[in-house]
């Protein structure tokens, strides 16, 4: 039986009904603001506007090829780009630092506990933290301290670089892009892009890669590892996606943002018997939790919490009129949500001192009393249930079942299903490598990233994923791309029927969907480690593998940092939206061409998802041909 997908047209129809709700409520949405922005400024679009000193702003035109300090288009575009990398890496860095602090806070009887002891001990072993005769929490705290040192240690390079396949380590060493301390790399970029410092584009591109790598093999990887230790390594779990997961007669709480130390506590609080009873007292049938963006990914990976949607769906959640509270922490939260929530009964609650938003209800989340703090926030939502205006409620009757929870550990466990106990060891990626080498799978792609109003939302994600699986390319997804796949129905095991025979057979044997949800944006580190494991197994460097990264609808600076560490890791990266560097021919040449000589991979930009898919498949086949497989 063919899996029925939710088509992009159906999604758009729902969106336009919700847009109608906004118009009725006099609420403004991103579509209005996009419209009001008119055509965006060409100088910014091309990356040749500079405002890093007060002699400027300067912009580059044919008649004014240099800024006042003498910086040309190449320098300016490169500096702007490098700063995007720094900002993205900083976002992931700070996220990871928080998690490390939380691990350091963990205790036997506290809100935060160690859930995956094995993973903690493994990491302790890797980092040389002795565990002999030590209390579990002493080990946890020491590991947390080592992790925290990674952000600012004075000497050496990042510890996780040791995990890389030999060829990568050598390349990083040789090209001097091996990241040192995470925050140091970010600071170095801010320094070098100051007026009168680095003017050489290539040098800035290299710094961008090094800083990107400090994210992928540093901040993000630490974030993912420690989150697994604290809250459990994800295992396959069934969930549901899209706005239809909101409930007519329950207190609907939407969690939005990124940091699992908040969301995990909210999950616990929403299951708390006392609070559930309280909700019932207030006339609701219970508490219904749903996630948005990466927080949704984190809690769905570990608890199967339903996913309301991705980045450009955040306002839609409020527009249903059925949401009592949107609880947010950091990153990718529209400041517009405050004003939007005012048009409905919805409470927009900010919780982090790092992301205060005017007009929001700010209830600072207290990590030291995490559970109680979360309960207080959930109670606010319950109290708001009575205020719901039933006349304004419209919950689209649309949801899809989805599988999530595919950590590397979970994937390997699935792969064990196809090992032969008389030949193979379990617990390895050999079956995946075998499928790729034999050609049953043509390759693997990671589809990641955001939504962007510059392209038809979710269209590219879905089109590209469909093209990949139909051509026997297995897809792993994270972030808002994974959510797009979930909404469409592509994370369901039945979606294997949309795959080519090779992938379909693999999915049947391994019992997986054709698109594996590997988590949030920081969890792209999982993808990198999976590819790295295959490279190690095959004893070859990553650029040789028929593996590609795609960010079809990227928008954030985090996405830029990610793109930089993905190519830094030796994986060709395809973008569906142009980075703001096109005003510099040299930057375009560096990113789409010369960077390959440095790290063995490069960027390709193509806005048409059909053409992009074709190019990806060609690249994959070219890599296969080069390997003779």
């Amino acid at each position: 039986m063919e899996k029925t997908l939710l088509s992009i047209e159906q999604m758009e129809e729902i969106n336009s009904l919700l847009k109608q709700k906004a118009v009725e409520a006099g609420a403004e949405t991103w579509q209005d603001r996009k419209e009001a922005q008119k055509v965006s400024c060409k100088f910014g679009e091309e990356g040749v506007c500079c405002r890093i000193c007060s002699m400027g702003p300067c912009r580059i035109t044919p008649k004014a090829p240099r800024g006042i300090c003498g910086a040309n288009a190449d320098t300016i575009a490169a500096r702007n780009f490098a700063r995007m990398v720094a900002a993205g890496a900083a976002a992931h860095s700070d996220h990871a630092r928080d998690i490390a602090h939380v691990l350091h806070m963990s205790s036997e009887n506290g809100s935060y506990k160690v859930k995956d002891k094995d993973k903690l001990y493994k990491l302790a072993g890797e980092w040389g933290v002795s565990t002999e005769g030590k209390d579990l929490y002493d080990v946890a705290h020491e590991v947390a301290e080592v992790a925290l040192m990674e952000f600012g240690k004075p000497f050496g390079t990042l510890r996780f670089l040791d995990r890389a396949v030999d060829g990568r380590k050598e390349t990083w060493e040789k090209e001097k892009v091996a990241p040192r301390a995470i925050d140091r790399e970010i600071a170095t970029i801010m320094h070098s892009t100051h007026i009168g410092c680095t003017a050489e584009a290539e040098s800035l591109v290299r710094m961008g890669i090094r800083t990107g790598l400090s994210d992928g093999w540093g901040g993000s990887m630490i974030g993912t590892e420690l989150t697994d230790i604290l809250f459990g390594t994800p295992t396959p779990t069934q969930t549901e996606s899209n706005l239809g997961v909101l409930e007519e007669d329950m207190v609907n709480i939407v969690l939005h943002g990124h940091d699992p130390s908040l969301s995990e506590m909210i999950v616990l609080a929403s299951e708390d018997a006392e609070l559930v009873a309280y909700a019932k007292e207030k006339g609701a049938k219970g508490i219904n939790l749903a996630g948005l963006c990466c927080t949704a990914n984190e809690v769905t990976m570990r608890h199967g919490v339903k996913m309301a949607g991705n980045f450009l769906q955040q306002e839609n959640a409020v527009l249903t009129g059925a949401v009592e509270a949107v609880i947010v922490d950091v990153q990718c939260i529209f400041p517009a949500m405050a004003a939007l929530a005012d048009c409905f009964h919805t409470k927009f609650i900010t919780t982090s001192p790092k992301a205060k938003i005017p007009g929001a209800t700010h209830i600072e989340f207290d990590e030291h009393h995490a559970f109680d703090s979360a309960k207080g926030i959930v109670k606010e939502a319950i109290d708001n249930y009575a205020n719901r205006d039933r006349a304004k409620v419209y919950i689209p009757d649309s949801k899809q079942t989805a599988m999530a929870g595919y950590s590397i550990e979970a994937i390997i466990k699935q792969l064990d299903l196809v090992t032969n106990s008389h030949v193979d060891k379990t617990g390895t990626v050999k079956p995946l490598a075998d499928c790729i080498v034999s050609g049953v799978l043509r390759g693997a792609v990671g589809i990641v990233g955001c939504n962007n109003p510059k392209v038809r939302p979710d269209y590219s994600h879905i089109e590209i994923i469909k093209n990949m699986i139909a051509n026997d390319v297995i897809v792993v997804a994270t972030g808002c791309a994974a959510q797009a796949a979930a909404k469409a129905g592509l994370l369901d095991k039945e979606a294997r029927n949309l795959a080519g025979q090779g992938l379909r057979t693999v999915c049947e044997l391994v019992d997986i969907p054709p698109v594996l949800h590997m988590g949030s944006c920081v969890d792209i580190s999982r993808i990198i480690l999976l590819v790295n494991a295959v490279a190690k197994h095959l004893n070859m460097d990553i650029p040789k593998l028929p593996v590609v990264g795609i960010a079809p609808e990227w928008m954030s600076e985090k996405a830029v940092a990610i793109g930089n560490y993905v190519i830094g890791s030796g994986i060709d990266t395809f973008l569906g939206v142009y980075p703001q560097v096109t005003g510099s021919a040299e930057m375009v040449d560096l990113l789409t061409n010369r960077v390959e000589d440095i790290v063995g991979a490069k960027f390709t930009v193509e806005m048409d998802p059909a053409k992009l898919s074709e190019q990806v498949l060609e690249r994959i086949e070219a890599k296969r041909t080069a390997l003779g497989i």
Partner: protein
Amino acid sequence: MTLFDIIFQGTSDALSAAKSVVEKAVADKGKEHKVAFPDTAYSLPVIYAATGKKISNLGELQEAIAIVESLLVKEQRLENGLNAGLGTALAAEIIEAAKYSVEEAPYVAPLAGHISDPIIRSLGVPLVTGDIPGVAVVLGECPDAETAAKVIKDYQSKGLLTFLVGKVIDQATEANVKMGLDLRVIPLGYDVTSVIHVVSVAVRAALIFGGLEPGNLDGLLKYTLERVPAFVNAFGPLSELVVSAGAGAIALGFPVITDQDVMEVPTRLITQKDYDKFVATSLEARNIKIKITEIPIPVSFAAAFEGERIRKGD
């Protein structure tokens, strides 16, 4: 060469061999000359089951070559690899049918060649009850006769039906393996193409016991995958033709276990270099669980020996 290219090459080889064999037969005997396997109501069973076409003379046999050609699409995809494998199976059947058409007795005892319908009917019940827990196809050449005997006798002791193709037949003889239908070890023939006679058994099982409509290829593949617990052991250097035939087995749902280095496909194409583990690896790959516990007595003891007469002097 990629795995699929090896398969495509094997299919091309099978195709040109089939073409020349049939051409020669037509030149010698004419297009009207009769083509049939003995004692079967299913014409050329593999072609009949796969396409619904019955073939009765050399002219029609020649036309059947177009089916093989249509199965050879050289784009690197699993379905093409599997289809090419099926193409090789059909080509093998064409070649074997031509043998039976032009020769009086292409196979002489102990070689079985084509297996008759009555034999297949007699195998039906023990296959369904699990009395025959599986069908092993052992082909090629083991490193030595002793290894061959060990593997074959192991299957025999577990009650499996074992078909032998190629030099392994001589090795079995050399090592004094007792053969015969009632002993459940059947030497088919020396040419790789004679392996089609065991495929023909599986296919007729689908037609006879599975009530399969001739021409329902998908149904056939589903039946053999789910209901015929067969697998292939390929020993010794693998020609492209053998790999391609192996792809045909895989298309039918039969895993291939080999002692050679190949590009492995989990659960389907497996390399096992340890001959002591060959049988266990194969049974696990086909998910065959032996019903009766083995009895640790020095002589192999199983249903396979029921038909053996103890002769004086043994």
